């Protein structure tokens, strides 16, 4: 485990192609002049899995919304694949706490929804084979023509993974994607997520408040502090890949978790 100050030193993966670059980002809400984010610098490299962890109100949701193009920053540069993010883009894949599948569409049509919205029904129809392949990837091969009411919570989230991947995005933004699932399902889905990300060399950014989950999945973890929201530490997790659930019980894993917990400080548990 090594620590670097994100404002000074490039991290070990610095030689890889940067996908997402943020510098000098701040967000002040005009309504109550609340400073949600201040001076945030952050880089995601190709194929890297990065998590951000922090107490509620540390600005991590605001950060994710700005990265997704759902909200404009007050100041700062937000660049994805060398182009500034000026709104929602097809090369950004998002996943939320809830699967939010439309109940009147079959699983496969739900997965094709991003294509249908951006390029129309014909393009969506042409992408059916790709959607079927994604369903196979997450083990839902037989459930393409089923309505979401017949899917369990874990299956619905797997369908949401497919929907996020269908437009082949350059970056995956994950907003506590499995926190609504029970613990057994959550562990399983985290392992699935790792497998999919490794297979596709996906660049992923995960917002979570489970330290163990962040450590298990991430190459790096940004620790955020509130008032104003800022990145306090950039921690590299040098556990070997692929990770497995047994690693949670190793001494090294425990040390990393302990370190992050003390980095979060007492304010995280107010």
């Amino acid at each position, binding site marked *: 485990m090594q620590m670097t100050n994100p404002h000074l030193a490039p991290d070990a993966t610095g030689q890889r192609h940067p996908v997402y670059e943020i510098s000098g980002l701040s967000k002040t809400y005009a309504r109550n002049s609340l400073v949600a984010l201040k001076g945030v610098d952050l880089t995601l490299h190709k194929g890297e899995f990065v998590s951000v962890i922090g107490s509620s109100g540390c600005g991590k949701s605001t950060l994710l919304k700005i990265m*997704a*193009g*759902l909200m404009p920053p007050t100041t700062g540069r937000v660049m994805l694949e060398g182009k500034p993010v000026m*709104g*929602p*883009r*097809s090369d*950004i894949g*998002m996943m*939320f*706490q*809830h699967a*939010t599948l*439309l*109940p*009147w569409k079959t699983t496969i049509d739900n997965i094709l*929804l*991003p294509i249908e*919205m*951006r390029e129309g029904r014909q393009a969506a129809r042409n992408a059916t084979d790709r959607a079927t392949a994604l369903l196979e990837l997450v083990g839902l091969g037989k459930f393409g023509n089923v*309505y979401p*009411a017949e899917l369990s919570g874990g299956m619905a989230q797997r369908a949401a993974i497919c929907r996020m991947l269908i437009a082949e995005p350059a970056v995956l933004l994950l907003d506590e994607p499995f926190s609504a699932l029970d613990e057994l399902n959550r562990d399983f889905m985290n392992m699935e997520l790792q497998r999919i990300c490794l297979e596709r060399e996906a660049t992923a950014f995960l917002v979570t408040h489970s330290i163990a989950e962040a450590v298990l999945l991430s190459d790096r973890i940004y620790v955020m502090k509130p008032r104003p929201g800022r990145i306090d530490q950039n921690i590299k997790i040098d556990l070997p890949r692929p990770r497995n659930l047994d690693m949670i019980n190793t001494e090294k894993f425990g040390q990393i978790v302990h370190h992050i917990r003390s980095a979060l400080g007492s304010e995280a548990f107010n």
Partner: protein
Amino acid sequence: MAQSQTEQHHGETVWIEREAFIDRIPRWIAMLGLFIIIVGIWHVVTTTGFVSAIILPTPGETWNDILFVGANIMRGEYMFEALVTTSLTVLYGFLIAIGIGFSLGLLVGETKFGEKAVLPYLVAIDTMPKVAFAPLFIAWLGFDIASKVALAAFIATFPIVVATAAGLYAASENERMLFRSIGATRWQTLFRLKLPTGLPYIFTGLKIAAVGVMAGAITGEFLGGGQGFGALIRQAASQLNTPRVFSLILYLSLLGLALYFTVVWAQRRFVFWNKAETPGGIG
């Protein structure tokens, strides 16, 4: 009411749950039984002279008149004409109410202007007793079917406006965020998310409107005369022909049921994903 009890099975005590006797009666027997009880009481109070025949006819007299009116309708005589008139009034009124109600609902639910400027007026008009507008409609549109259509539509519009607007608010924050994140336009969000999500609400409004449109059409016919069933009922009542009033109301309620269940059928057809629990599967 479910009650639990223990029983001996193969020497073991098992705990089984049993519904009370009255809840185990099959539905059609329960309905038929209740019907027989009500008609029985009706028969007793009228044949013993406990209630005057002018106020309440006997079940037998009413049944004979139901057959008479039914035969008249089947032969396409004047009562059939009246039924057609009232049916058309109801149908036109309902279609107009759907058109205006849905448009206003979209305006109120989808635009800030509608919510700020239009909604207060709609609420103000909705609180008025709408039947009181009947003389105005007659003055404006005459004694023909148009004034009755107007009153029926007027009464049925408001539930549709309210239901449509409420339906458009029904999409959750998560769903809206999903649609924004996949780059959906405002129109796409409206037609592919908010309207489908709001359909169960809209159909609830349509069911309320289906009841209101009947009331509006008959009230219009009571107050404005004309050729419909409402006029026949008024005429029969003024002649103290209570069996006729009863049987006309029965046929009228069949018309109301037909309209209501058309809406229910449409709801099942278009909102197939929403299997909300309804008592006994009615509505």
